């Protein structure tokens, strides 16, 4: 099965918020950034950062979830089963990306790549979000293949 990865080219992001509103709309039928699984956060001033699930494998959130609520699907997507989640938030404590958030009332949410057809990618006018098939099993950042969450963080820090 082909796996896909959603890459973010932060330098192209203008903070127009189209992805954020599109996400909250397709997921929860509201236009509210709190309901979006993708976040645009300020790194100070006009420098922006786009936060969303990196679909790690193995995934920290999956490893610590004791409720069987998080799992890595066959296609590599890390998904949250809201019916099994009790809002213990252990996953939030270990996610290095802050990619698990809540939509208010203690309902945890995270990106599921829209089942393979991410809405955010379709609405981004600046090609800052790229959904592509994985050639290597591991993401490629700056010409270097990244094999673990730790390496991914280091690559992103550079």
């Amino acid at each position, binding site marked *: 099965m082909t796996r896909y990865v959603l890459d973010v080219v932060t330098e192209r992001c203008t903070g127009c918020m189209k992805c954020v509103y599109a996400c909250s709309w397709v997921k929860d039928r509201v236009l509210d950034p709190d309901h979006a699984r993708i976040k645009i956060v300020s790194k100070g001033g006009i420098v922006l950062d786009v936060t969303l699930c990196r679909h790690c494998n193995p995934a920290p959130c999956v490893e610590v979830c004791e*409720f069987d609520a998080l799992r890595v699907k066959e296609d590599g997507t890390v998904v949250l089963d809201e019916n*099994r989640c009790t*809002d213990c*938030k252990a996953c*939030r404590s270990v996610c*290095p*990306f802050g*990619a698990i958030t809540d939509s208010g*009332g203690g309902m945890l949410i995270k990106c599921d790549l829209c089942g393979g057809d991410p809405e955010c990618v379709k609405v981004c006018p600046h090609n800052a979000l790229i959904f592509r098939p994985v050639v290597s099993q591991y993401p490629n950042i700056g010409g270097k293949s990244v094999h673990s969450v*730790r390496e991914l963080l280091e690559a992103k820090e550079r």
Partner: protein
Amino acid sequence: MDYVIIGGGVGGLYTAYYLLKEGVPGERLHIVTQEWPPYTRHRLGEILESGSPIDNAYLGIVPHLKRAGVEFIISRATGLDPSEKKVIIDNGKGISYDELIISTGASPFIPPIKGVHLSNVSTFYDIKALEELIKVKKSLRITIIGGGLVGLAAASALRRRGHRVIILERLPYLLPTVLDEFPARILSDYLRGEGVHITCGEEVKELVGGKRAQYVRTNSGIRGTDLVILATGVRPETKWLEDSGIELGRGAIKIDRRARTSLSNVHALGDAALSHDYITGREVYRPLGFIAAHYAKVVAKDLTGDSRASKGIIPTLYERVLDVHIIRVGLSMAEASSLGLSSEVFCDKTADRVECWVKEAGGAKLGYELITKDFVRRNKAWDVYTDIRDTFA
């Protein structure tokens, strides 16, 4: 073979869930629960804060369990006769079991001070308390006694609802079971910045008033109040087991690495029981939902032939209080010391974030604490978690 589960909290429900997953037929599972429908306490504060429907608290796995044929008995266990393999419930009736799983949870500790039974004094532990607080419309002076996780969840929600909130913590700093002093003091500073009054190191002596508490008297003064919330910790719900002969430690049920108790055919888990710390292997009392779920899996496996021992728990805590995020993974220096490990804490502070590492004298990482007003991305919790997992495996 009939499995009887006492307690309809997350520990009991997830034990049923994992037993089903291991192939036990639903008709063989019987859950005795006091509250219906079962809910998660984790969401109470967030529901109060956001004004979202109370239904959000109800646990999503319950319909799944019902569909599978699991029997729910709305009652309360009052006694256990292990020689007859029978649990006595409210109406005096006995329920026979082949295997018993005790997950009766905990109940709020009510401190022995004068005035705690006055009409405007409550705990913040169940749906009833949540409903009462939702009804309060005008802005009140609310005193929260106890600066632990429950106290802070209540403070966050009530402050957002426009109340004047004061937290009184007996110990020198907030979240004493979660954080070390330096990050906890930074947390206090942040929360004061969001309009929460915090007083640490002050002990409540009396709640003063006729029918309602009007003043809170502490060892250093007296303050007016309209409402008081007791958030002074919990105690394991094990009184009903007094005559059963089950072995307790600090009031909680002692369990081994397979969550077996001192009685045969009886497992226990969750807030009613002790658990094991991963790093030290020591017995600890940590009333946290994910620990109940961890042992639920262990119990289900043990009862279905996979008797692998649990390696214990590496705590992984996240809380948000107003706009402040709190993360703790592994041990704090304070908890490490209570478990017999000598350690030091190293902190790195910037304008809106403090990050701390707890290290053992030999250099091994034991824990990580983060307090931030910023987004939580790029934290080092997972690094520390994996270091602990691999170092102490």
